[in-house]
C-alpha cells in the first residue's frame, strides 16, 4: 500500500505486526497449553467426555442452533424477497420496522420475555430460546438479504412470471439459487449467534439435562471444582465447532460482519 518496501521497512512492519498481534495470541495459546497440563492432554480431554455430560450439552446446543438456523433462514428468505422484489403498500414502513430492531438491545427485554415465557409455560422448552433468539438475529439478516436480493435482475423475475411461475416458485427456483452467497452468510451468522448465546439459556433452561454449551464453564466449576486443565479442555472443545466453521467459511463470516455494516 505504501509503495515498495525496503528491507528495513519490512523488518519494521514485521516487528510491529507481531507486537500488536501477540496480546491476541497469548490468551488463545494459554487456554490450549493449560488444557494439556495437569494429568496430561489425553486424560483431560477424555475426562471431559466420560465424567461430565459434555455430549449432552453439545447435543442441546445443536438442537438450539438447528432450530434457530432454520427459523432465521426461512423467515429471512421470505421477508428479504418480498421487501426487495414484491409490490406492496407500506413496504418501506415494514422494512423500517424490521431494521429498527437493530437498535434495541435484546437484553433490555429480559422482564417481558421472562414473564411471557412463564405465562406460556415454556420454561425448559427449547422454543423459549429459539424464538427470542431468532427475533434478535432477524433484523440483521433481513437487512443483508434484502440488500443482496435487490441486485437480482428484474428481467429474470419477469421471465419466470411469463412462464407462469408463482412468486413462490420464482423465489425458490430463481432468486434463492442466485443468492447462495447471502444464504450461506445467514446460515453461518445465525449458527454463530445461537451456539454462543449465553443469556437466554441461562434464563429459560434450568433443567441440567437441557443446558447449552455456554453453561459448561459455570457447570464445571460448580460441579468439578477448579481443575483448570480440564475446564480449559472443555473450553477448547466447546469452541472447536465455531473455529472449524470459521476456517471453512472465513469469507462468509467476514462478509456477514462487514456487509451489513458498510452497505446502507
Amino acid at each position, binding site marked *: 500500500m505504501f509503495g515498495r518496501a525496503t528491507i528495513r521497512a519490512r523488518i519494521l512492519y514485521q516487528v510491529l505486526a507481531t507486537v500488536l498481534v501477540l496480546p491476541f495470541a497469548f490468551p488463545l495459546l494459554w487456554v490450549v497449553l493449560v488444557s494439556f497440563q495437569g494429568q496430561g492432554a489425553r486424560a483431560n480431554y477424555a475426562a471431559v467426555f466420560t465424567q461430565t455430560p459434555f455430549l449432552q450439552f453439545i447435543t442441546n446446543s445443536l438442537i438450539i442452533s438447528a432450530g434457530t438456523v432454520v427459523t432465521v433462514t426461512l423467515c429471512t428468505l421470505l421477508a428479504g424477497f418480498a421487501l426487495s422484489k414484491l409490490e406492496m403498500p407500506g413496504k418501506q414502513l415494514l422494512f423500517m420496522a424490521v431494521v429498527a430492531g437493530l437498535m434495541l438491545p435484546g437484553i433490555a427485554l429480559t422482564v417481558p420475555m421472562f414473564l411471557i415465557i412463564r405465562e406460556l409455560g415454556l420454561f425448559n422448552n427449547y422454543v423459549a430460546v429459539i424464538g427470542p433468539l431468532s427475533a434478535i438475529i432477524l433484523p440483521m439478516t433481513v437487512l443483508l438479504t434484502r440488500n443482496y436480493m435487490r441486485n437480482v435482475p428484474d428481467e429474470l423475475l419477469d421471465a419466470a412470471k411469463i412462464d407462469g411461475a408463482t412468486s413462490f416458485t420464482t423465489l425458490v427456483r430463481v432468486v434463492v439459487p442466485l443468492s447462495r452467497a447471502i444464504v450461506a452468510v445467514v446460515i453461518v451468522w445465525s449458527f454463530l449467534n445461537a451456539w454462543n448465546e*449465553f443469556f437466554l439459556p441461562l434464563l429459560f433452561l434450568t433443567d441440567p439435562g437441557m443446558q447449552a454449551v455456554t453453561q459448561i464453564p459455570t457447570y464445571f466449576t460448580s460441579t468439578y471444582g477448579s481443575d483448570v486443565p480440564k475446564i480449559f479442555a472443555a473450553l477448547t472443545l466447546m469452541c472447536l465447532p465455531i473455529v472449524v466453521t470459521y476456517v471453512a467459511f472465513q469469507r462468509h463470516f467476514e462478509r456477514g460482519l462487514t456487509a451489513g455494516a458498510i452497505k446502507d
Partner: protein
Amino acid sequence: MTATTATTAAAGRSRLRSRRARLTAYLYVIPALMLIVGIIYVGVVYNSWVSTLDWNGLDPEPTQVGGGNYARLLADPIFWTALRNVALFGVVTILVQMGLGLLIALVLSGPVYGRGVYRAVVFVPVVLAPAAISAAFRQFFRPDGQLNALLDAVGLDALQRAWVADPQVALLALMAVNVFSWTGFSFLLYQAALSQVEASQLEAAQIDGAGTVRTVRSIVVPQLRMTHVTLALTGVIGSLKTFDIVFLITGGGPARSTEFLTTYIYKEAIMQFNVGYGAALSMIVLALALLLTAVQMRLYRLDRES
C-alpha cells in the same frame, strides 16, 4: 358490447390478481414480522407497562405506582454507579478498539509475512463464545494466574494485582477482555474500507513528500469516516448490552465497581423478583440506545453536510 364486457372482465381479473399478489406479498413478510413484532415490539410495550408497577411478577394484583420506579431509580446510587460504569466502559473500549483495529489494519496492509495467520488470530476472538472467553480470563486474572506470571516474567511484577478482586482495576480488566474479543471486528471493517481507499491518492501524497504518518492522518483516516460512524454506533449498542463477560468474570463486583445496567436488571428482575424496577431499568437502557443512535446519526449528517 360483448367485447367491452370481456375487456372489463379481463381488467377486473388482472386488478384482482394484482390485489391478490399484493396480499401474497404480505404473507412473505408475516413470519419475520410476527417474531420481531411479537417479541421485540410487544416486549417493549409490555415492559413499559410493567415499569409502572410495584410487582414481584407473581402477585395476580400488582400495585400501580405510576412513575414510582423511576423516582426510586433516580435516587438509587447503584443505578448511577452502573450508568457511570457503562459510560466509562463504552467510551474507553470503543476508542481503544477503533484505534487498535485501525492500527493493525494499516500495519497488516504493509509488507508483512504470514499475514493470513495474523489476521485470523486477531479475528478469531470475535467469533468465540463470550462465555468461553470469560471463563478463560477469569483464570488468567487470578492472583496466581497467567497474567501475573507474565508480568513477573518480564520484570513488571510491580504491576501485579488481584485483577478482578480489586475495585480499582476490575473495570479495567473487563475493558481488556472486551478489547480482546472485539478489536477483530474493528480491524475487519477498517481492512475492508482501506482496500477501497484510492491508491492514486496515496501515491500523489507520497510524491508530494508526505510521510506515512501524514498520509494516514490526512488522506486515509478522513476517507474511513463511514467506518468510524458504524463502529461508534455498533459500539454504543454493544456496550449497553454487554452482559456475559461482566456476569461471568466479576458478577458486577467487587463492591458494585463493575455493575452494569444489564447485570443490575438481571439481579433485580430475576434474582430479587423486583420485576417493576427491573423493567424501569430496562426502559433506561432502551431509551439510551435510541437516543445515542439518534444523536450519532444527526452528528454524522451534520458533519456530511458541512
